[in-house]
């Protein structure tokens, strides 16, 4: 049984829908041009042989088979990327929160510490990475000199496959200024009366942190984790520069560049996109890697948002 809608009401609804669409149109145009179109193009190119000069030719699943089965750099790069997502993101969030907590507790000289911790974040990534490779050079770097002086075994850092990712993590922790500022703002926003009530109930520092601070700042923690995961999926400059500088091959003398020095341990998926697409002229295979990155970033984000209730705080 259907009820007829009055023509005037139908026209009014249509007008409202058109108005909504008009207001949304700038976003729709932008989203289509900069998200949907590139995504569909990438999907299409992943099934073609395309070198950027001749027109793309359809090759079916050849690029997918090559990347997953025959391209020797894919699996090491995927493993490294996942390692960095799990270890580096976790440590950055914990460290950023820890520094934020410490600085909000400091009574005098907080500005000085805040500046000291924030400044490294402003350093250009290439310069910062080169400085770290120099500082952590196992033969001539001052860090190993000090470690050796106090009897601690000196690691190979960027020249040792087992230490190169931890060295990159140290570099990422040094530039923690962005997260520190975000966490400080969140920590200062936690209502004081909740701490006072918890203290009256006999809660110690750990319980105050666990049951007052953490629930209040959980949306910010989630934000830090989600953006951290996405940034780490796109991690390119630091591992590339570290690998190149530490290997001693700077790449402008006609030598072949070795990706992921040492022993592919600093290879990440974005480096493969560049290697395949812009150095080997193999856009098809590069698009496969780009799609893997996209799917992984979406999967991690969806998983985190679903498990932790998204960016909604305990209060909301």
């Amino acid at each position, binding site marked *: 049984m259907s009820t007829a809608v009055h023509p005037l009401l139908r026209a009014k609804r249509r007008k409202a829908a058109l108005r909504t669409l008009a207001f949304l149109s700038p976003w729709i145009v932008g989203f289509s041009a900069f998200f949907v179109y590139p995504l569909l193009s990438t999907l299409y190119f992943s099934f073609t042989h395309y070198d950027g000069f*001749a027109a793309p030719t359809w090759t079916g699943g050849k690029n997918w088979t090559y990347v997953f089965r025959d391209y020797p750099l894919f699996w090491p790069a995927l493993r490294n990327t996942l390692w960095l997502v799990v270890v580096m993101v976790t440590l950055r969030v914990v460290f950023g929160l820890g520094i934020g907590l410490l600085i909000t507790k400091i009574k005098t000289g907080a500005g000085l510490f805040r500046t000291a911790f924030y400044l490294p974040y402003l350093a250009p990534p290439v310069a910062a990475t080169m400085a770290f490779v120099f500082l952590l050079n196992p033969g001539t770097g001052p860090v190993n000199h000090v470690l050796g002086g106090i009897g601690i075994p000196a690691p190979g850092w960027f020249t040792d496959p087992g230490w190169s990712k931890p060295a990159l993590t140290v570099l990422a922790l040094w530039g923690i200024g962005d997260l520190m500022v975000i966490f400080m703002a969140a920590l200062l926003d936690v209502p004081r009366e909740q701490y006072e009530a918890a203290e009256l109930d006999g809660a110690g520092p750990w319980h105050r942190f666990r049951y007052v601070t953490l629930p209040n700042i959980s949306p910010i923690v989630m934000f830090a984790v989600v953006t951290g995961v996405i940034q780490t999926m796109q991690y390119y400059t630091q591992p590339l520069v570290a690998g190149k500088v530490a290997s*001693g091959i700077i790449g402008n003398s006609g030598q072949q560049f*070795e990706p992921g020095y040492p022993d592919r341990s600093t290879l990440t998926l*974005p480096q493969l996109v560049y290697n395949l697409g812009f150095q080997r002229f193999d856009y098809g295979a590069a698009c496969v890697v780009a799609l893997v990155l996209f799917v992984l970033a979406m999967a991690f*984000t969806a998983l985190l948002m679903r498990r932790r209730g998204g960016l909604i705080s305990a209060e909301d």
Partner: protein
Amino acid sequence: MTRLTKAAAAVAATAAIALLASACTGQNSSSANDDATKDVTITFWHGWSAPNELKAINDNVARFERAHPNIHVKVQANITDDKINQALRAGGSQAPDVVSSFTTDNVGKFCSSGAFTDLAPFLSRDRIDPAATFPKPMLEYTQYQGKRCTLPLLGDAYGLYYNKKEFAAAGISAPPKTLSEFQQDAVKLTKTSGNSYRQLGFMPDFHGYESTPGHLAAQWGVKYFDANGKSQVAQDPGFAAMFSWQQQMVKALGGFDKLEKYRNTFGDEFGAKNPLHTGQVAMGIDGEWRLGMARDAGMNDLGVAPFPVPDDQASTYGKGYLSGTVIGIASNSARKNAAWELVKFMTTDTDAVVSFANAIHNVPSTLAALKSPKLDPDPGFRTFIDIAQNPASTTTPASINGGAYQVTLQDFGYAYESGKVKDLQAGLRGVDSQVDKDIAQAR
């Protein structure tokens, strides 16, 4: 809030994809119908960056402009292959007309993709016979499967550098000619200090700057591909011999871990603290450019000679690995005839080639220039010119995917020297298999 964040996350995650897809728009044309006698400005990209190099190339360009007053050249220095790749694909008014690259390995990619114009019609039109103009190895690395899309613009030859003072102190009267003599001298010149070295005779590790598998394998006269274009490093005995020799050197000089630790104390390859300059190593394999760099760094005790050859190939002493700079015309250039005039001048004008070679201490790239009396008479420089002219000298062949096959061989070399891979023959078969897969993917 949640939906917005999800969308933002998705947009951020696909930013690279957007760039990748939007970059895929290049078109090219192979026709050359511009009038090179009319007033025109062309753009020339090259990779040189040192002040003496820039002066030399700018002087040559100025000579060209005097000879061709209607053609003006806009020069862009310090260009890498990655920038070239992107510019050739993108095209447009700011893209280069004439491009030079240090990476001869990329010629296969430049030719097969159509990024560079086929120069055969230009050569034929101007009655230039490449075989009578350029040395044979240089002709090989500037073409791919018969398509000549580049020409040589000076060359590089690799030889042995040795510290004359240390040779005298160790009682070595002449540079070694065979690899067994070389090993004895390297051991004799090595001075240990605790767990490290005060001086190392030779750094055999494949990361020891120019001691790469490709440069060393040239001493065995290896062939990378068979007649069908299939990788044959497991079949050519030269590769196995080279890897075995390198491993023997590593053992004789103290072992991989100790050598790697010492290698980490070396300064930059292209800086003043190169280990040959500082005396950290007494011998090294390097290109002719090291002569000038060492003198600039105040090191005047370096002697040069051809790199030693395997004992069973002693009669071929004098050969070495060859490489060089290539120059070509972008296929999307709208000024190809004018661009060709510059390419022709830079690569075939004897005075231009000789003066450029003398200025930057590179090997001249034409037969006439190699015989020119105006060529720098420096005996060290002449050693490299002799290596370049030696008929047994070889280069790494052009491949459709650039130097990917060399990266695969290098990767195996790193795994083998570190002991991660033990079975040499199985490893070389793995290299063949991987190289063939990569080439099949690129076709």
